[in-house]
Every structure is written in structure tokens, then in C-alpha cells.
């Protein structure tokens, strides 16, 4: 119930921010639409821990994202140098490893973080097996038991 209420509030906020016009009619229409969507998503069983994972939102935004942004910038710079290097120094590898997350949301966050970081793409994602394509052997070797893996598991616990 609390989750559905927070879903309702975020939908109303979304409407207000996108519309930017605060006449009584438009605000009422927004609230009405938000209520209808919450009722529909309740019937479709969508606003669950996966569809609206509000339980880890704040921890994720405050502690995980800044670290992830730093990692993205670091590896994007690395890939940029390799792209512009005359000899194109790449050594593509496929790496298979076992992630330590146990929940679906944790696995998805880990897999998406891997793909979001330039130089690594998660190709196959299963509960106990990730298949990752890496642009360099170094990037591939750093995946098993990485800090990203540890941080995603820590995120799950909250």
C-alpha cells in the first residue's frame, strides 16, 4: 500500500513537472490520471518491488550513482583513447562469471551497470551466470568479484 502511494505521488509529480501549467483543471486532470494509472497497474500487478523499487531509491541515488558516474567517465576515457589510437589496441574477450546478487533487481542493476560502462557489455544474464563481452582483456579480467559486484550486492541488502 505504501508502495502504491509513493507510485501515485511520483506520477502526480511527473505530470506537474511535464505540464508546467498549474490551473485547477490541469492539476485535477493530472491527479485523476495518476489515480487511474495506479488502479490499472494494481490490476496488472506492475507496481511491485521490481516495477517501482522505491526501497532502494535513495541509497542508490546517494551512494551508488556517484561511484558509477566516476567509473563511466574513467572507462569512457579509456575507450576513447583506444578508439583514437592509430594501432587500435583492443583485445576483445568473452568473460563468464558468477555474480553474487540474489534478487532480480540486484542482478538487473549489476548487468545494466556493466553495459553502461563503456568497454563492457553484458550479453547473457542469468541468476548464477553473466556472459560479458569486453573490449580489452584488462576490462574483462576486472569483472569477476569486482567492486561493482560488491556494491550491487550491498545495495540489495538495504
Amino acid at each position, binding site marked *: 500500500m505504501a508502495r502504491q502511494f509513493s507510485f501515485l505521488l511520483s506520477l502526480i509529480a511527473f505530470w506537474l*513537472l*511535464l505540464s*508546467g501549467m498549474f490551473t485547477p483543471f490541469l492539476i485535477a486532470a493530472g491527479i485523476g490520471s495518476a489515480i487511474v494509472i495506479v488502479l490499472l497497474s494494481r490490476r496488472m500487478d506492475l507496481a511491485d518491488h521490481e516495477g517501482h523499487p522505491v526501497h532502494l531509491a535513495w541509497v542508490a541515488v546517494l551512494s551508488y550513482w556517484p561511484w558509477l558516474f566516476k567509473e*563511466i*567517465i574513467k572507462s*569512457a576515457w*579509456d*575507450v*576513447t*583513447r*583506444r*578508439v*583514437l*589510437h592509430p*594501432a*587500435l*589496441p*583492443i*583485445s*576483445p*574477450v*568473452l568473460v563468464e562469471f558468477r555474480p553474487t546478487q540474489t534478487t532480480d533487481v540486484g542482478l538487473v542493476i549489476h*548487468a*545494466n*551497470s556493466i*553495459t*553502461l*560502462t*563503456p*568497454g*563492457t*557489455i*553484458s*550479453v*547473457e*544474464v542469468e541468476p548464477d551466470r553473466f*556472459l560479458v*563481452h569486453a*573490449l*580489452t*582483456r*584488462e576490462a574483462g579480467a576486472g569483472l569477476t568479484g569486482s567492486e561493482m559486484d560488491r556494491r550491487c550486492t550491498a545495495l540489495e541488502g538495504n
Partner: protein
Amino acid sequence: MSTLVESISAISLLLGALFCCVGGIGLMRMPDFYTRMHAASITETLGVGLTLLGLLLLAGWTLVAVKLLMVGALVFFVSPTASHALARAAMTCRLKPVLADVGETTSKP
């Protein structure tokens, strides 16, 4: 003050454009489908990120800034999902990736 913000925004937009170009160059230079996706991911992270940052600084504290942040969040969540779907589809169609030989060492750029 506003000149400072505007020049930071200009630098950020310029860098964003530069990283988009790098992504494009990489797309041409890389040998196969999977490595090309790595090059494209520069465009969708640093290219998009710096361009949005530049526009955010120009927008200031307005609703336009909020919308730009929403665009950023959308790209942040959707682009890895789309990349993963593409890579997985390629693998399912048995497109073999070009892999480095076991003994070969990577030269540092």
C-alpha cells in the same frame, strides 16, 4: 557570473559533441558488431551526458532543466537495456565475436 556559467556550458557542449564524434569514429574503425557497440557506448554516456549538462547550465533553475534531467534519466536506464537486447539478439543468432588470441598482449594506448 552568467558569463562563467555560459562558458562552462559551451565547453561542456563542445566536449559532448567531441565524444559523439569519437563514438562515430570508433563505429567506423572497430572490426565487428560487438566491438562497435563499445564505441557507440561512448556516445550514449559521455556524449549525451556532457551535452545534457551543457544544456542544463543554460536552462538554469527552470522546468526545462527538470525535463532535461528526465531525458538524462531515460537515457541512463534505457540505453544499457537496449544495448543488452542487441548484444543478446546477436549472440542468439550465433554471430561470432572477433576475439583476441590467447597469447596476444594488449598494447597500452
